[in-house]
């Protein structure tokens, strides 16, 4: 009897707690206008007049994304979620959030792009494409065409970021399966292989036809070489060229402690933006770009000492950012929604560093570089920050969100993905 009484009391108490909680949540419901600018746990810092809305959340490893002409957002996942590797987000009522969320494509990966009625998506070895119909739906979600196959993926820089031009070409990053082409990868003091054999099949951008099935190395051509790893890349329609962001080499101090301090290790080498042409060579692994000396420096694995210059045949970067920030997304802005200074400029999404330890980590932000006539016309500035959750989360590298992909919507807004929790933000300009 007594037990029954205490049980009922407990039930009543629980009911009260739950009701209170529900009420509290409900009253918050009225003030969600403010919350719209946040994923529940972070607030993005943006220039005045810009506004961020959480378009979708908790998608998992949201890598690159692509927006269709009707505004549908396609997100590529690095890990399958409910068996799906691609998520379609559709805002059916125009409130700036995705209500219709569906998935397809049973393969994980990073790359995704839309061109001329096809959705292209990559795994770490292949590129597939799906046909879109007149109503902007995927025609056969279970049966994509295999465009490229058999690309190398060897435990390092596996992600196959992709991009297309307007002349029927597909560009695929094949990252080097090495840090600096040492005889023993990442081994202290191990010297570099010369010539670096990795460059035959990786460490560059390969070009394939966008509509030919089952192509492999022999069908494509090495469009650009000497690129350690590229994740962020974008076809610039004003210059009609491919721009890429290279992930610079790691561990100068760990591997050559007599030549580099931990502080130098944190800053060097630069994370470089390159404008590519057929045959471009960006110099990896023989050289790296030092953004403090403004020079191409001979890599220590090839006899360098931090000062000797080299790489006369290698291209100079278009922009050189501080080291290890990990540029994973690149977008040249062609919209009209943002203020004039953003037109044709570059947004670069920095995933955030890990290779600056024991110095504090940095990055986890989106920067903007103004461009005029296809060249940078001013210094880069931080555009969107706060993904990590605060300076302490940035410094420790334990960021709450890690920005990765970027894409432009038909209305000129931009979307940013986060591959840590899978938040998708939509950033728009609301005016002064």
């Amino acid at each position, binding site marked *: 009897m007594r037990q029954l009484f205490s049980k009922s009391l407990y039930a009543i108490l629980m009911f009260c707690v739950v009701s209170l909680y529900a009420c509290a949540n409900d009253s918050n419901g009225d003030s969600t206008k403010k919350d719209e600018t946040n994923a529940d746990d972070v607030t993005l810092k943006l220039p005045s007049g810009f506004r961020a809305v959480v378009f979708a959340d908790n998608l998992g490893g949201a890598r690159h994304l692509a927006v269709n002409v009707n505004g549908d957002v396609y997100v590529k996942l*690095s890990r399958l979620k409910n068996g799906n590797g691609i998520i379609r987000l559709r805002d059916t009522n125009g409130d700036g959030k995705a209500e219709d969320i569906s998935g397809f494509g049973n393969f994980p990966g990073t790359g995704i792009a839309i061109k001329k009625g096809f959705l292209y998506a990559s795994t770490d070895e292949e590129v597939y494409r799906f046909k879109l119909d007149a109503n902007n739906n995927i025609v056969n979600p279970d049966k994509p065409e295999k465009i490229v196959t058999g690309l190398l993926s060897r*435990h*390092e820089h*596996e992600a196959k970021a992709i991009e297309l031009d307007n002349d029927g070409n597909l560009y695929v990053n094949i990252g080097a399966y*090495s840090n600096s082409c040492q005889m*023993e*990868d*990442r*081994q*202290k003091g*191990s010297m570099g292989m010369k010539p670096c054999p990795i460059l035959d099949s990786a460490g560059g951008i390969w070009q394939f036809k966008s509509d030919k099935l089952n192509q492999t190395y022999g069908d494509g051509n090495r469009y650009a070489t000497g690129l350690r790893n590229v994740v962020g890349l974008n076809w610039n329609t004003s210059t009609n060229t491919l721009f890429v962001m290279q992930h610079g080499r*790691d*561990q100068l*101090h*760990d591997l050559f*402690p007599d030549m580099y301090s931990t502080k130098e290790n944190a800053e060097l080498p630069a994370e470089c933006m390159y404008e590519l042409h057929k045959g471009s060579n960006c110099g990896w692994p023989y050289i790296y770009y030092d953004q403090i000396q403004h020079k191409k420096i001979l890599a220590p694995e090839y006899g360098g000492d931090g000062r000797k210059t080299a790489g006369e045949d290698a291209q100079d970067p278009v922009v050189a950012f501080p080291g290890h920030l990990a540029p994973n997304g690149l977008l040249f802005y062609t919209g009209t929604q943002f203020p004039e200074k953003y037109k044709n400029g570059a947004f670069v999404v920095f995933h955030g560093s*890990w*290779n600056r*330890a*024991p110095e504090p980590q940095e990055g986890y932000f989106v920067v903007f570089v103004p461009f005029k006539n296809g060249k940078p016309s001013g210094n880069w500035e931080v555009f969107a920050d706060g993904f990590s959750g605060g300076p302490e989360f940035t410094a*420790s*590298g*334990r960021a709450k969100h*890690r920005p990765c992909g970027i894409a432009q919507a038909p209305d000129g807004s931009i979307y940013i993905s986060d591959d*840590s929790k899978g938040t998708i933000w939509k950033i728009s300009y609301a005016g002064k």
Partner: protein
Amino acid sequence: MKKPMLPMVICIFFFSMTLLAFKTSFLQTQLQASIARGKIVYTARCLTCHQVDGGGVQNMNPPLIKTKWVLGDKSQLIQIILKGSNTGVTIDDIEYHNVMASHKDLSDLQIADVLTYVRNSFGNKAKAVTEAEVKAERAK
């Protein structure tokens, strides 16, 4: 005359207790010394990839916090330091892909120290790794 047994027993008892205490404190000091030396090795060789907090890096370098790799079989753990690893590991359904270099140039004592440090840091608590154990693994 009857021998005073009781005081003698008490004496022996306290003497052994003291010895035991000395032994425990000696081992404790030894463990602490090994951990302290191991931290120096960790900072020089491991910290960049596995980070200050041992938490590793998303999808690249595995965490060293309460995983079976760190707390489990010592032999396997020592072999990873000696030979490196290029197969990747999966922990809690997350794959970590990056290559780990061999650190066979470290001495047996340095490897024992760094593993003892790792097994007793970041919330881990496991038995020390000894120089003799590393030596035996190296000979395999």
